[in-house]
């Protein structure tokens, strides 16, 4: 499904949810990142039609999700919060929403049972959801959201409160849905989880999109952000020579000598990486490994949200 937001703004009284957001998202997994109050949930509500934009417009496959009720048969939603009928068992809960999708009661019950079994709730499906642990509830929410085989899945903090096993199971499910061509929007505070699932990121802060696209590409677009590059020579004895050479490079701001490697601070990673191979060839230094310890999603997130990219 294609998701298009055109200059979408959503205010809650004087509080701004999102401001002037323009995005085009397609099939696959897109991670939505941002600190609390960044507008992640508002963006998801706009996509699901739970909120209308105060300005601008939102279209899902060219249709308005806020007024087109039939379009909603293609949506699956896992909210951040609990959203259960206290008196229902997991099976009743999933079957109830399947019936609202037009599935006959008997078939709904059978499909609910099969799905709950798939997510590991087979033994507990006849228990009331209010007796469930956090992880089990999350699984029940997932089962409900995917029961009708939707094309668009909106997952708001889907791994909250889950143990590693559940997390791995849910991640596998999400990957399999994405591989099947579904469009998945996923927000999480656990950046490692997003990183493990996708490179396609939307960074939000203060209701605005700070960056969107492949996280490696975003990193390249931030030339003034300080980055660390770790060089591990094959011969550890060459570390001082390597450090001296690196310090002579104009793109290098600082060098620190560690036990096994040399760590470089640079604000121009691209120039640094271009200059590195001829430099190493000339000095006849063999490198065992090059990593960028600060180039994970968390570091990028910190840099973006901290506003470092705006520094000249």
């Amino acid at each position, binding site marked *: 499904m294609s998701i298009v937001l055109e200059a979408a703004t959503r205010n809650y009284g004087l509080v701004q949810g999102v401001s002037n957001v323009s995005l085009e998202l397609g099939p696959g997994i897109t991670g939505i990142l941002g600190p609390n109050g960044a507008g992640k949930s508002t963006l998801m*509500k706009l996509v*699901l*039609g*739970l*909120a*209308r934009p105060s300005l601008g417009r939102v279209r899902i496959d060219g249709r308005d999700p806020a007024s087109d*009720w*039939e*379009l*909603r*048969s293609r*949506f699956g*939603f896992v*909210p951040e*919060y*609990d*959203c*259960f*009928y*206290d*008196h*229902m068992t997991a099976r009743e809960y999933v*079957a*109830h*929403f399947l*019936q*609202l*999708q*037009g599935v*006959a*009661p008997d078939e709904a019950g059978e499909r609910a049972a099969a799905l709950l079994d798939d997510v590991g709730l087979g033994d507990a499906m006849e228990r009331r959801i209010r007796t469930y642990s956090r992880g089990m509830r999350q699984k029940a929410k997932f089962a*409900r959201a995917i029961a009708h085989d939707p094309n668009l899945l909106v997952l708001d903090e889907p791994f909250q409160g889950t143990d590693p096993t559940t997390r791995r199971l849910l991640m596998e499910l999400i990957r399999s849905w994405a591989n099947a061509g579904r469009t998945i929007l996923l927000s999480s505070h656990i950046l490692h989880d997003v990183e493990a699932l996708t490179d396609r990121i939307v960074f939000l802060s203060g209701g605005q999109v700070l960056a969107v696209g492949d996280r490696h590409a975003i990193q390249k677009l931030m030339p003034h952000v300080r980055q660390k590059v770790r060089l591990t020579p094959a011969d550890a004895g060459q570390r001082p020579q390597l450090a001296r050479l690196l310090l002579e490079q104009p793109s290098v701001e600082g060098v620190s000598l560690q036990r096994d490697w040399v760590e470089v601070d640079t604000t121009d990673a691209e120039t640094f990486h271009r200059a590195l191979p001829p430099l190493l060839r000339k000095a006849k230094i063999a490198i065992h490994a090059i990593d960028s310890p600060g180039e994970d999603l968390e570091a990028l997130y910190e840099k973006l949200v901290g506003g470092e990219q705006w520094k000249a």
Partner: protein
Amino acid sequence: MESVGEEVARLLQIGRPVFRDGVRQFLLARSTLIIAALLLTPGLLSGWFWYDSRGKVETQVIAGDEVRVFEGEVLHAVMADVFYGLAFHLYLPLVVALVALLGAVELLNTEFKQKTMQLLRTSPVRMYEILLPKLLAGTLGTFVAVGTPLTVMYLALLAHGGSFGLREHLPLLGAVLGTLLLASLAYTSIFLLINALVQRPLPVSLVYWLVWEVMLASGDSQRFSIMHYLRSFALPRLKYLDVEADSLNLTVETVTDFSATVTSIATDPWQSVGVLLAVTAVTFMLASRMLERKQF
């Protein structure tokens, strides 16, 4: 565009689980069970009367019917009066609205509290398809929660008059249950609208009920209340008990220099049904619209 047949089939398919769940939720709610248990009290008290009057009740044959008499009073007539008084001066004006109010909160406000409304709004359903089964569940729930104790009370009280008493006053029971059904429908729709409009429906519903239905439901202004139309519907069905408009507060007093005239302002019973159904339809449509437009 869907045909009417398809629309009805869809309503039935989507409405069935919502209705079934709503009835279960309503009737198993703690508040409903407590109120229903309290409402059974007058019926139980009639057992005490039976104990107290044992051996003092005589059976006489009057106009070919076996009639029971206690201290010179025809028991079935006394008990019918007691039942009429409790039904029309306590249960119908006070209890029905309270039960419908709590039921509407249980049916709709909990969808907001439990945040399941957001799931309903992301499901391929129109809000009236959800609200209609909830209205019917609320109506049935209120009718059962109040009607069952009322029927038990009728049986317990009129049993003192023997089988003749039970048969003789079936029109009274019919009037009570008919009025109760209309009251359940109208009040449930009004309270569902309040639940769709405000975040804290309980105090707002209580204020509406106390100010509009209790305090304003006298004199001419009662024409704007649901109670007026409920009483107007019941009045002709109670004529056989010699119940007049003033007994149901369906009168206004006009005072001139020389005299005071009391006149009935009862509305025609079928017109009353029409007004109550119209109120239900309008409030239902407004509530559906409000839910459809609700932003999260």
